[in-house]
């Protein structure tokens, strides 16, 4: 991971804007040879726009150098907990870029996009089978977008029941992703935090105490962010329903249970999935993803627009559900991501998806077994897709933080695990290997973590200044926030 060419010493100081020369260009634009229509009045036009002027080769070289300063799944093991950084099959990208799909216009009549819609129909059916919740909208663009859809659906259903005025609370475990409480707030609900019990599961007594006629829903991540199954969630579902509330499922960790157990069978009313996690679509440095929302028959009329349906005559079309919460984006969602997810589902089939969840869980437990004793394990139970260790002993006894451990892991050639999440684990180190890492990669990761733990004892200062081999060292994040520089300026070099 190193830049090339002259001036790499402080590569980041020079943006494309600083690398151009007036008069250079990266692409031709044909000139208009026909009759010229007069342009609109000058007051509607701009005189110029400040943009870099680079040759084509220069621009390619700049962005290639940037890519070399990045680490992806194809670079190496990426055990970022809760993010399911599994191998992204290349055939998915190839088929998604077929012109028939790629050039399809979002306003095209259904007759003109039967291939795209057939894929969405079959993907939706497959996700319905896998979750046991047969009603689906594929429109949400990411997990948090799917959550927003799900919570809006709950609000709309309560409104139709005449209970939206009274059911103002959503219960969220303290181990939840931050998107859960943020989503509940965007839908106008108050959030009540539910503590995690000593065994890492939801505290049943608190839930029972909190469940009353003011509760709209309980949002549960299953498996949870400790990598643990919520034991007895099917009974909790019954309690929630008895109290008149809905059970929302955050399916971010669906990779652990694909083909093993279904949200619908457990009593969940509405869930979202993250197809960029469980269904292998590239994460893109933070999107695009896809966050389909799936639900029970009761909530189906409220699904976001559009949903995909097949007519009696075999025509697949987009429709608006009867009591839809409406659109959450202008068109139909991240269709090209859905094509990739469908290709993944077809490449694996049920056996392959079950093999994936089985291996993902085996790999996480293998990490747990190999690393046991080297770091604290606050919730010491067999896990599903991920395992959360703690660096609290290293912090307390050696003055080495998990932050330092993560940075030192970079020097061993790994992307660090998720750190400082979930919030209920001090100095958390959240490791999700996924099924696509071979055992030797897991062993190498664990060896690196053990070596870092030993180094924390012998030479903590090396950790405090890590990473040593990355394209850049630790950055001053405090100044970045205090005196924000958020764009190129002419004299900023």
């Amino acid at each position: 991971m190193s830049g090339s060419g002259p001036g790499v010493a402080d590569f980041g100081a020079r943006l494309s804007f600083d690398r151009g020369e007036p008069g250079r260009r990266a692409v031709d634009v044909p000139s208009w040879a026909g009759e010229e229509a007069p342009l609109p009045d000058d007051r509607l036009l701009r005189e110029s726009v400040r943009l870099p002027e680079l040759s084509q080769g220069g621009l390619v070289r700049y962005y290639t150098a940037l890519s070399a300063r990045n680490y992806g799944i194809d670079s190496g093991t990426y055990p970022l907990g809760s993010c399911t950084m599994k191998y992204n099959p290349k055939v998915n990208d190839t088929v998604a870029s077929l012109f028939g799909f790629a050039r399809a216009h979002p306003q095209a009549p259904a007759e003109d996009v039967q291939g795209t819609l057939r894929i969405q129909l079959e993907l939706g059916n497959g996700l319905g089978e896998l979750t046991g919740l047969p009603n689906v909208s594929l429109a949400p663009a990411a997990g948090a977008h799917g959550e927003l859809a799900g919570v809006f659906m709950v609000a709309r259903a309560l409104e139709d029941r005449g209970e939206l005025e009274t059911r103002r609370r959503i219960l969220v475990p303290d181990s939840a992703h931050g998107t859960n409480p943020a989503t509940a707030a965007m839908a106008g609900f108050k959030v009540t935090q539910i503590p995690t019990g000593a065994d890492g599961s939801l505290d049943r007594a608190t839930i029972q105490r909190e469940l009353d006629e003011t509760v709209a829903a309980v949002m549960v991540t299953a498996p949870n962010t400790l990598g643990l199954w919520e034991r007895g969630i099917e009974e909790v579902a019954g309690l929630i329903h008895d109290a008149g509330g809905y059970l929302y499922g955050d399916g971010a960790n669906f990779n652990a249970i694909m083909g093993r157990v279904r949200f619908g069978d457990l009593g969940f009313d509405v869930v979202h999935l993250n197809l960029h996690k469980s269904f292998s679509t590239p994460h893109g440095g933070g999107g695009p993803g896809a966050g389909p929302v799936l639900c029970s028959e009761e909530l189906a009329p409220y699904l976001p627009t559009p949903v995909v349906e097949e007519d009696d005559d075999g025509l697949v079309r987009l429709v608006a559900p009867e009591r839809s919460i409406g659109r959450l984006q202008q068109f139909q969602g991240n269709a090209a991501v859905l094509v990739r997810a469908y290709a993944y589902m077809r490449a694996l089939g049920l056996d392959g998806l079950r093999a994936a969840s089985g291996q993902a869980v085996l790999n996480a437990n293998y990490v747990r077994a190999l690393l046991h004793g080297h770091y604290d394990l606050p919730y010491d139970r067999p896990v599903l897709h991920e395992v959360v260790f703690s660096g609290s002993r290293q912090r307390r006894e050696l003055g080495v933080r998990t932050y330092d451990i993560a940075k030192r892991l970079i020097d061993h050639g790994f992307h660090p695990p998720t750190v400082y999440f979930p919030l209920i684990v001090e100095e958390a180190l959240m490791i999700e290997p996924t099924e696509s890492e071979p055992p030797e990669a897991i062993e190498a990761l664990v060896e690196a973590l053990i070596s870092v733990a030993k180094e924390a004892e012998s030479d903590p200062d090396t950790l405090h200044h890590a990473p040593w081999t990355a394209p850049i060292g630790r950055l001053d994040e405090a100044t970045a926030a205090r005196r924000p520089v958020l764009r190129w300026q002419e004299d900023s070099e």
Partner: protein
Amino acid sequence: MSSRSSGSPHPYIPATGADRARMLERIGAPDVGALFADLPAAMRDPAIHLPPALPEPELIALMEELAGANADPWRPDFLGAGAYRRSIPVITAFLIGRSEFATSYTPYQPEISQGTLQAAFEYQSVVCELTGMDVSNAGLYDVASATAEACLLAARVTKRRIVALLEPIHPGTVEVVRAYARGAGLRVDTVPSPEAIGEEHACLVAQQPDFLGTIVDLEPLAAAAHGVGALFVAVADPFALGLLRAPGDAGADIVTGEGRDLAGPPNYGGPSLGLFAARTKYLRQMPGRIVGRTRELADGNGRGEERTGYVLTLQAREQFIRRERATSNVSTAQALIAVAFTITVQALGPNGMRESAVLCYQRAHDAASRIAALPGYETPERGPWFQEFLVRGPIPAAELAARLAARGIGAGLDVSARPEPEARDALLFAVTEATPEAHVDALIGALAEIGGEA
């Protein structure tokens, strides 16, 4: 068609049977199934019906067949109405295909994510330059959700509960703003003119060019909004901003836009990209990721260097810190599409952006004037326009579209149900810099033929 044989090792899952046996022994579990013991036994391993797994060649063949079930991707097609086929430089797809960009995630570890971070800073810079705004985030889902977020921001800072959308604005945008507003307990007014807003409104939102293609003079709209203490939000097509006045220069407080069309092909609408830029005073109210420039810590690398680098910043606004008090719930958005957008804009550069926009304008105006010259056709105008125009023919709009479809031509969107008098019986055609001349010729020929039949 052959399917994969059940039980054979899958190319995406490297562990072998021998590996599994060894790992299970180390863990102390009898088999993989035992690892799922916490799941309720009665519900475990349910019957699930999925189509059979396909080996790669069969998968490609299936997907080719499905792609072929869509309309011919190269036929003449004049749909616009929010999505436009553009001339995208080949290098854009090539560079975002670099798997170091594509297969990374949110840059939580800046030391090995400078590619994503610096590219996002380039993106923010380009968006600020095009829109004339002070600050940009790193991108949201799409134009409509970005506009909804702008409305929520306006309501927060003005402490007012009603947002106003100026017609004609994309109906999808109206619908999304309504859905978000309902959650926040806000009312949405669609207004025919800026005179309709008052001191109860948090913002006035106007689209540039508007939904029917007309170029809007934003300055009086901004003045009208500011006159009643409301924010002015411009929803601008960034491609058109190569030629049109920057909304920031005309007084906008927030600018949103759709970046998809400069990032790649339409992809049936997504991945999309929501632009969101604002005045500095709203920075700490903005939704989504923001990347900032900084330097290495003096003791951050043991080398005593202080090189320039990029980090996610101002994260105290965000859901993973602020939880229910965050400015938005956005987490994963459209990072890779933002990189693609940036590469296209930078490849075009200052001259190319303007030249492309002018070429688009000229091609569209040429096509419109040829249509208007056909007997029985008119192209009603509502003012100066950019790349979309209304076509009223000798037969009802829906029938005209059907007859074009029968000739292998995709017509413009049927807007005949809209309230604007110019849209009566009309289709909304888009012609861009990427529309081949031969397609326009085919359209003219077909329209003439249809006119002759009428």
